[in-house]
């Protein structure tokens, strides 16, 4: 009984440690600037002053829409193209298939540090700097998603595919009409991981986007914090950070189970 009590104590202390800082951030962003330096729990009055400042100083709503557009495009692209490649690798026979599989495994281990500079130069030469193309196109396919789909499709019975072929389906119809509805867990896993990764990406946007109207949300908030425009107003900084956290936290609250399962299974496959 005492042992149980101690376990619960540690678990509660632990969850406070991981959740309380976020709570403090939200409550600080809602407090008047002069109370910030000694705030520990709730301010005496709640005010939206800091949020008003953020909205006045930076195009944060626009950046939210930019991020949404970029992340959704990338996620759709990854699902469509990576499942296509995964299907070909698992179910179609062609020469060099094994070689391509090894190439994919190899690119998975390739550190991004090596391609960062030449990829930027490529964007300059394509004149994609300050366009969404530079944010989206390089991310439309990824090795991890291809491997995930390949593994998943291999577990689907060949009979299902043969039956569809006899019914006159072509390969694309087999993939999107027969395999997709039977691969919902794989689609969710790849979808969540891709969306989260692109939503939270900040290094690449910092490099290829300079026009404030085209910036993604994490990028804009970062530049607001490190550039002089927050004018060291803590409340405004924390309000912008809170706005940045809200979309993904909301998604997490609703799809919590999927988030945890997806990230755990992606980790285990490494």
């Amino acid at each position, binding site marked *: 009984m005492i042992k149980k009590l101690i376990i619960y104590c540690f678990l509660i202390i632990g969850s406070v440690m991981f959740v309380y800082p976020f709570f403090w951030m939200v409550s600080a962003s809602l407090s008047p600037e002069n109370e910030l330096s000694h705030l520990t729990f709730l301010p005496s009055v709640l005010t939206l002053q800091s949020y008003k400042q953020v909205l006045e100083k930076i195009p944060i709503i626009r950046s939210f829409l930019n991020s949404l557009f970029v992340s959704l495009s990338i996620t759709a692209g990854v699902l469509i193209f990576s499942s296509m490649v995964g299907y070909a690798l698992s179910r179609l026979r062609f020469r060099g298939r094994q070689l391509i599989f090894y190439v994919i495994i190899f690119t998975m281990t*390739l550190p991004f540090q090596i391609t960062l*500079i030449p990829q930027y130069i490529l964007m300059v030469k394509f004149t994609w700097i300050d366009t969404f193309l530079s944010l989206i196109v390089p991310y439309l396919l990824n090795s991890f998603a291809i491997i995930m789909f390949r593994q998943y499709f291999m577990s689907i019975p060949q009979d299902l595919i043969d039956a569809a072929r006899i019914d006159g389906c072509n390969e694309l119809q087999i993939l999107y009409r027969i395999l997709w509805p039977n691969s919902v867990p794989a689609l969710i896993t790849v979808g969540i991981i891709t969306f989260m990764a692109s939503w939270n990406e900040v290094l690449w946007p910092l490099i290829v986007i300079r026009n404030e109207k085209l910036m993604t949300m994490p990028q804009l908030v970062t530049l607001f914090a490190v550039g002089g425009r927050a004018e060291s107003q803590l409340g405004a900084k924390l309000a912008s950070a809170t706005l940045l956290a809200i979309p993904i936290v909301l998604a997490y609250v609703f799809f919590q189970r999927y988030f945890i399962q997806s990230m755990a299974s992606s980790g285990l496959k490494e």
Partner: protein
Amino acid sequence: MKLRLKNVTGYLMISPYLIHFLVFVAFPVTFSLLLMFHRWNIISPMEFIGLNNFYRLVHDVYFWRSILNTLVFLVIHVPLQIMVALFFAELLNQNIRLRGFFRAAFFLPVVVSGVVVTMLWEQLYGYDTGLLNRLLVSIGLQKIGWLVSPQIAMPAIALMATWKNVGLYIILFLVGLQSVPSHYYEAADLEGASHWQKFWHITFPSINPTIFMVVILSTIGGFSLFIEPYIMTGGGPLNSTLSAVLYIYKQGFFYYHMGYAATLGFFFAVIILSVVALQKRFIEKETGA
């Protein structure tokens, strides 16, 4: 005929990957090999300078400093992450209520953007008004110069990174712990094994793969550290938080030394790959024996 047709569909379906690979992987890697022998600021023509970039790299104190900083990060981050994750995974593996709630709470920092976490911790780490120092003062301790002391800034970033990532490893360790058949423990109990004996001989081997994964992923993470120092310290104080990627970023996009930045990127990649290969080798040896 039918077989040929199948061949063609196969190629058609992997063609998006091939194009993507050639443009965004094969070309950049090849081009970076070329860039390493040149001086170039993108605007004026490329200038061949032979091995100058390599010579410069070997003597570049910032390059070595960033490697040392990464090591400092890893020495603190890896053991801390493993211990904290194991501790909470063990607690969650007991027969308790609200497991789902606790799991979700620990996992929250994992999903939130690193930008948010960094901006938040910058305030927690504040010297005079930061929550952590106020807590220390209130229990009668000295203030700590979290982000202003060159000795403490990198450990402080490592602590924050642990806070952000540990939720994922709690879940992974929990999966590992739950896969241990309970009759192993029952048998050990019959033999009169102690708590520690059970941990070392039953629990530890079953979570080994997860521990190695933490080591490898943290190594890659340590070399990828960017946004944390970029927002909190700009690489300071006294370059004590200058990370590998931040240094490439500065060389490339502050000074437009494309040739040198590509050289840095190449060598960091080589270091990462060799460290990970060594770790894998060590792991295989340890688990194979």
